[in-house]
């Protein structure tokens, strides 16, 4: 794949900067960028998972040192995530055989990004208005206030996360994130973090560490599965992405301290919507070349 080394390093740094800024993995930006650059979606998705492993390892270790990690909750999330990852890698291979992998990836991105982006945009605009009118944004739940799905059977108490909830919705969430992660080459932090914060009301201090722990474990497995099942991991590209990302993230994290929280969520929402729309264009605009060639493995 003749792609400039410096370009990849630069992109890794830029995406790393944004991921450090927003405290998210950055896979959701990097994979689309690689695809827009002309790298086959299969390779982009599989290789990007290596970069996610690296960046999540860094932040999970940091969280471990600050003791901001709930292993019990994390463990359950990992269990669900692994099943999801395996399903994701399997679907990836199936879609590739059917010649519709690109379509599946693009459609999933469009859906996921426009939905999550619009939700975040709505949330941040509302937050902005409440603040403007002098009201305060309430995040803490009232005593006794529980969503009904948290009361399903198999309830477990998570002391560190101050959570007493059924395992079923947690496993479901983890399953979905593992699946989307493996299929789309994203860590899923940008879904997992808001979900833990707003749906399960886990304290902010524990959320990031725990979600990073889950992401390391599931992405590690999907990386290996991708290498075995699809042979789409490019180790050289992975190293370039990791090196660029590591440095970018450090500067991003520093810059992030000067950014106001609501502005920051607003920007992130815009970013998600923009990527989603860019992908939608890919689907709707008539392509210059209607035909494509794929080499099929002879074993059939």
């Amino acid at each position: 794949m003749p792609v400039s080394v410096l370009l990849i390093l630069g992109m890794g740094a830029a995406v790393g900067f944004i991921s450090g800024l927003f405290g998210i993995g950055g896979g959701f930006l990097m994979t689309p960028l690689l695809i827009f650059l002309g790298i086959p979606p299969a390779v982009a998705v599989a290789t990007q998972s290596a970069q996610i492993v690296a960046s999540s390892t860094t932040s999970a270790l940091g969280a471990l040192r600050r003791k901001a990690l709930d292993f019990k909750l994390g463990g359950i999330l990992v269990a669900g995530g692994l099943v999801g990852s395996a399903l994701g890698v399997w679907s990836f291979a199936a879609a590739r055989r059917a010649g519709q992998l690109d379509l599946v990836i693009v459609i999933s991105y469009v859906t996921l990004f426009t939905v999550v982006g619009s939700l975040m945009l709505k949330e941040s605009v509302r937050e902005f208005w409440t603040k403007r009118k002098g009201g305060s944004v309430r995040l803490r739940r009232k005593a006794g206030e529980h969503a009904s799905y948290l009361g399903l059977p198999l309830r477990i108490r998570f002391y560190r996360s101050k959570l007493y909830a059924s395992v079923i919705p947690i496993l479901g969430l983890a399953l979905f994130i593992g699946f989307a992660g493996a299929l789309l080459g994203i860590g899923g932090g940008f879904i997992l973090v808001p979900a833990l914060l707003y749906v399960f009301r886990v304290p902010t201090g524990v959320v990031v560490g725990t979600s990073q722990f889950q992401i390391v474990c599931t992405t590690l497995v999907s990386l290996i599965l991708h290498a075995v099942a699809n042979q789409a991991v490019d180790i050289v590209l992975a190293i370039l992405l990791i090196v660029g990302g590591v440095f970018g993230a450090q500067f991003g994290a520093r810059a992030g301290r000067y950014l106001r929280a609501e502005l920051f969520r607003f920007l992130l929402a815009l970013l998600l919507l923009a990527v989603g729309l860019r992908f939608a264009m890919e689907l709707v605009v008539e392509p210059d070349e209607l035909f494509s060639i794929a080499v099929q493995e002879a074993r059939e």
Partner: protein
Amino acid sequence: MRALLGLLLLVLGLGPASAETLITSLSNHRVLINSNYTGTSIAVFGAIERDAQTVARATPYDVVVTVRGPSQYLVVREKEPIGPVWINQEQQKFPTAPSYLSVLTSRPVEEITSPQLRQRQKVGLDAIIGAPDFTNTREGADRPFREALYRLKEEEGLYLEDERGVTFMTPSIFRASIPLPATAPPGNYEVEVLLLADTVILARTTTNFELVKTGFEQQVGEVARDWSLFYGLATALLAVFFGWGANVIFRRD
């Protein structure tokens, strides 16, 4: 009398076919490719020997050099709009398409041969790609897929036809240069040289050369294919190591 004349014509028509001998040689039988390979070319040399009894021909000789790379199982897909969205719909399979195909001739192939001969002997790119056994049978449009295969491969520099690719240095000695772009896959390449005169095939030779990838990239590719679990584990380990390294280096406490 008529029979004799017929026999005479037959002798005249067939006789010369065995009169010429074609001798060809490649400049190289093994092309080594390392990671900074940007493409190269291989030269084909040929000499035409006529035995003593044969008289010189009125028409000049023509040469067609056909090079085929290792074959691949290719699938060509066509995007069609479904509602507002463009989706891969129809597909056509080419089970033994050559990954690389070039036809070099001394003159345009239409001038050298008759349409029947081109079709029967698969002379020229159009004849090779248009051959009935080139693809699996299926219903629906067939031609656009063959054309798309040619067009896409041509853009990559992997399928080409050069009607001035063979040069005669003397009336009986010629040379041709086979261009090999960086995208040419490794494997065995078959070089077929046809000698023609007056739209009749006089002689044919086939030789081979091998394109071998060496160096780091190839080794990585081999490991990824043959030791995929090990390769995956190594990549994972590397990623964790980098992540850990970043954590140690940029520690903020």
